[in-house]
């Protein structure tokens, strides 16, 4: 199985009535990858993930999981995935242990391994002490953890998480992201989000989807050409652009207005500091240095701008 695609989505389309929610989307994922599924609200992320998990049927195209078709051979295909929908699929009237036991049975974990599988997933999701608590009494953040524990209890090859950090407070978000990064060590993970930094901190590869169409499918480290960086430098008395061009490490300079310049350069933060020093010595009067939020944001905004957001939500 090594090197073979774990998940292959082939030309999947899905209509909701007359609204095309997913338009001819194809991509594949290898084992061990962490895939970020990025798009504005209503872009078709949730629909794609639900099709991927066999919860929703596609109108055309097919989904293969470990070479098994999710429609033709659902049992074999679904055994390889763990899915956390946008809303954690929990039963508030069960305790954490009862719930995870049920999930383990549903996912076909054999009796002999069930106990250790439950303990293990509880441990990993920081629920070690919550086993006998009623899920309905847990906080939103803990319920989300239970949702993730449910998705990994059978140690599936692929874990599919739909917006796992929405509705959590900043501290919980950090914890969940750490957990996802950890999961990436021994599972393939597909993560949908509309938050850019989430993709940047946790994913290997990014898919950008908008209005149902897949716009970008690229590894994160090849985005923006490696060690190139950009920042915006503001100068009180700017020199002629040629002089800026000539400074060490600068690749290109783009004047934004009379005082601000977007500068692309090669090198680390030291090079930026060197440039500022150089500007100060030359009497250009630097007063502001803003690193660009990142090339991913730029790409994302460029690809999704100019489009009216879809009226329909991406759920249901």
């Amino acid at each position: 199985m090594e090197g073979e695609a774990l998940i292959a989505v082939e030309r999947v389309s899905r209509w909701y009535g007359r609204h095309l929610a997913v338009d001819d989307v194809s991509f594949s994922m290898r084992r061990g990858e962490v895939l970020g599924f990025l798009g504005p609200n209503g872009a078709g992320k949730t629909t794609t993930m639900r099709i991927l998990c066999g919860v929703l049927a596609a109108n055309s195209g097919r989904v293969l999981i470990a070479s098994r078709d999710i429609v033709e051979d659902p049992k074999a295909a679904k055994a390889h995935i763990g899915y956390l929908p946008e809303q954690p699929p929990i039963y508030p009237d069960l305790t954490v242990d009862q719930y995870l036991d049920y999930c383990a049975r549903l996912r076909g974990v054999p009796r002999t391994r069930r106990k250790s599988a439950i303990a293990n997933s509880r441990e990993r999701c920081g629920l070690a002490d919550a086993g006998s608590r009623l899920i309905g009494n847990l906080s939103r953040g803990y319920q989300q953890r239970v949702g993730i524990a449910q998705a990994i209890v059978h140690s599936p090859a692929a874990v599919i998480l739909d917006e796992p950090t929405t509705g959590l407070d900043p501290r919980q978000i950090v914890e969940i992201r750490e957990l996802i990064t950890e999961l990436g060590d021994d599972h393939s993970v597909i993560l949908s989000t509309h938050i850019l930094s989430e993709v940047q901190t946790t994913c290997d590869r990014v898919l950008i989807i908008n209005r149902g169409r897949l716009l970008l499918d690229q590894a994160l480290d090849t985005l923006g050409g490696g060690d190139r960086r950009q920042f915006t430098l503001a100068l009180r008395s700017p020199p002629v652009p040629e002089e800026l061009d000539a400074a060490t490490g600068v690749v290109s300079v783009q004047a934004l207005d009379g005082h601000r310049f977007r500068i692309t350069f090669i090198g680390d933060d030291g090079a930026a500091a060197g440039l500022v020093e150089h500007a100060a010595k030359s009497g250009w009067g630097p007063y502001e240095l803003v690193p660009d939020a990142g090339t991913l944001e730029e790409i994302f905004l460029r690809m999704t701008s100019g489009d009216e957001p879809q009226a329909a939500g991406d759920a249901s």
Partner: protein
Amino acid sequence: MIMLDIARVEFRRMFQLPLAWVILAAVQFLLAIFFYVLLSRYLESAQLAAGRGMTEIVVAGTLQIGGIVMLLVSPFITMRLFSEERRSGTLDLLLSSPVSLVELVLGKFLGVLLFQGVMLAMAALMPLSLLAGTSLDAGQLAAGFLGLGLLMAAFTAVGLFASTLTEQPAVAAVTSFSALFLLWIIHIAGHAGSEHMAAIFAYLSLLRHFDRLLDGYFSSVDVAYYLILVGTFLALAVWRLDSVRTWR
């Protein structure tokens, strides 16, 4: 067996909510009243009995009322089955698991059947207590309990199907109650028509088959009626869940 696991969890979750307890208590209370009334009337006037036995009047009478009580409470037992799973999103958990729709539907059905079994067993204790003082017609008793059991299984199957139609439990309850009530009295519709039509409508009626079993008249036609009804509505539920996946 994943089906039994689903049934077990369904059964357990029912008792986590007050609804199950309230229903058990209410059914027991109502049946106890009717049982007492029937028993005291039987004891007071021997003429009324006029050759008919204890089993026929007290036991069959209680079971007949039992059928009506079950008609009233069954929709409340089954209304949450799938509607709540759909609304709360837990259906996604079930659909993304390596479990087939048939296993899912049968598991839920068995879980409710287990609950109905508890209810039936509790209801049976009252007529059976008569054995302490008198003898009963064992054949009629068995046929009567079989009839009530089959009737409850049919109620469950219809209610389960109704719960797949909507995300609102209350809507599911009203739908299944209407459907059950229609099936209960459908033989009346046959009265106006030809003899042929009357026979068809009479066969469709839930009540007619139940009455025959209560009389101690065991016939495979009546048993088959309930089994076909259960099978049909469970198949409809599977079909409906599959189409929810496609057309939602």
